[in-house]
């Protein structure tokens, strides 16, 4: 059975499941007004002042589950009434301050923000620049750090706190929709807009008329390998089929295609570029475009594995409806880019997949085992940090044996930013830079079902199960189809 990691995840799940269930039953309009009461039954409030506020918050979640406000482009939205006005001042002097003689904090502060009042240190929030030097200097460790979890999580610097209301808001010009804040807010006050309604409605039609058109295809991210800890991947594949999908295809196959094309691109582009970056992580790509626009031409022009797989599916079935399922909130924005046309019709997350399964009472742990095997080891390891690099080096060794390629994999926006800064200064000592916005890579994505210590070995183990040994073997079928 699925075990929820915390109540935020559970509440989100309940909302998504209710919306999906009503959509499948065709009773959404009738059910909508009663969803908040069904989820918050009372009579005692659990986390807020009263059940009425709790229900009001659930109502906002329902709106986001239905797709949210179409005028607001960003898929990541703060639920204002759920934002609990966490403390704004990052550094505070605690009761442990002894009022000593040395006042090392006073000397350490470069901004003159510390004053001594009644022998004890006091930080002037108006002057404090949150450098943390005072906390380091205090021999008693009496200066505490208390940063809002959303701000701590957001390495893009996209969270702003309103001075008066103390509510969080998102700076659109910085946000890359990585979803770190969604996962990190302990009140669940930031949520990703969902496409679960459209997907459930389309699947509902297919379930009512099996074998009909247009067919629905599920493209599954390889990060699935560390997700359904209570069932086998084959059982999850079978469960997805029971939802009404015609076929389940691994995005890792697209990753193999990407590895092949990207390596060819890198090897030729290095003739006139100092380095090239990956393009598979949409949040990383967006971060470059927003913070390092001068490096935009270094981004690989190859499509992401999601898009490559979707295009492949549509080349075999032009009417196909493709739903990408992964751990990522940024993929929702990537799929919506106008330049991609309608390659990917919908993006849902593993959380939303779980909600769809539960809405139809499909227990994957009781399903038979379906098959999912098209990609190679290298396509599958794209799910973890370092995987793309390994794949590209492997293809490079196949295409141009003996050619030296200096590659580096960075994960987490913070490290990516450091490497890109070096790149901007022309001092990046690498030819190829892999960037993943999530620390650890996609297996640690924000919309994962399990955020436990992700064993990279779990992905590698799954990757080694693939029939095709390498990228060339996985992609040879397409060359053959083209008569090459």
């Amino acid at each position, binding site marked *: 059975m699925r075990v929820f990691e915390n109540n935020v995840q559970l509440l989100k799940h309940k909302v998504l499941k209710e919306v999906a269930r009503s959509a499948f039953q065709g009773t959404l309009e009738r059910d909508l007004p009663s969803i908040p009461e069904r989820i918050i039954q009372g009579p005692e409030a659990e986390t807020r002042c009263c059940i009425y506020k709790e229900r009001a918050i659930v109502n906002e979640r329902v709106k986001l589950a239905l797709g949210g406000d179409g005028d607001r482009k960003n898929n990541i939205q703060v639920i204002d009434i759920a934002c609990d006005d966490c403390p704004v001042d990052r550094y505070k002097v605690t009761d442990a301050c002894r009022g000593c003689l040395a006042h090392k904090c006073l000397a350490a502060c470069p901004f003159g923000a510390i004053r001594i009042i009644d022998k004890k240190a006091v930080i002037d929030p108006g002057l404090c620049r949150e450098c943390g030097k005072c906390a380091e200097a205090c021999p008693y460790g009496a200066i505490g750090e208390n940063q809002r979890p959303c701000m701590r999580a957001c390495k893009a610097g996209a969270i702003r706190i309103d001075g008066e209301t103390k509510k969080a808001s998102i700076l659109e010009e910085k946000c890359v929709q990585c979803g770190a804040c969604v996962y990190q807010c302990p009140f669940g006050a930031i949520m990703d807009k969902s496409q679960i309604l459209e997907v459930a409605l389309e699947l509902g039609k297919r379930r009512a008329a099996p*074998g009909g058109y247009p067919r629905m*295809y599920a493209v599954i991210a390889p990060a699935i390998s560390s997700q359904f800890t209570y069932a086998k991947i084959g059982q999850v*594949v079978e469960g997805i089929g029971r939802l009404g999908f*015609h*076929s*389940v*295809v*691994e995005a890792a196959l697209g990753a193999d295609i990407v590895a092949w094309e990207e390596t060819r691109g890198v090897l030729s582009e290095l003739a006139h570029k100092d380095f090239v970056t990956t393009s598979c992580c949409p949040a990383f790509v967006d971060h470059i475009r927003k913070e390092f626009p001068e490096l935009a031409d270094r981004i690989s022009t190859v499509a992401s594995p999601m898009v490559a797989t979707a295009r492949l*599916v549509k*080349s*075999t*079935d032009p009417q196909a409806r493709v739903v990408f399922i992964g751990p990522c909130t940024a993929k929702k924005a990537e799929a919506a880019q106008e330049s991609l046309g309608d390659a990917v019709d919908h993006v849902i997350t593993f959380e939303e997949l779980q909600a769809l399964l539960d809405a139809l009472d499909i227990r994957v742990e009781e399903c038979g085992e*379906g*098959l*999912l*095997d*098209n990609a190679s080891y290298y396509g599958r390891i794209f799910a973890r940090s370092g995987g793309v690099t390994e794949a590209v080096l492997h293809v490079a060794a196949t295409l141009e044996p003996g050619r030296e390629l200096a590659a580096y994999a960075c994960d987490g926006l913070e490290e990516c930013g450091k490497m890109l800064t070096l790149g901007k200064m022309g001092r990046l000592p690498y030819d190829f830079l892999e960037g993943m916005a999530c620390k650890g890579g996609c297996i640690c994505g924000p919309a994962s079902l399990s955020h436990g210590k992700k064993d990279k070995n779990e992905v590698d183990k799954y990757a080694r199960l693939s*029939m095709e040994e390498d990228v060339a073997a996985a992609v*040879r*079928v*397409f060359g*053959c*189809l083209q*008569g090459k």
Partner: protein
Amino acid sequence: MVVQICIGSSCHLKGSYKVIEAMQRHVKENGLEEAVQIKAAFCLGECTRGVSVRVDEGPVESVQPENVRAFCAARFSKA
């Protein structure tokens, strides 16, 4: 004539690539490029009987790497 060969997981494991490769070879050797178009499909719905192959709008047939040559000889024609 359009020939669809399933490259979904089940058929892939049973040798889709070998079937496609053999069909392409047959087409080339017999000058059938104009008459026979070989295409891939993700699942023809007969996963237990792969490798699934469908000629035009006909039924889904089962072809193995072992009998693909005979299949081509019998079914592919210039007409």
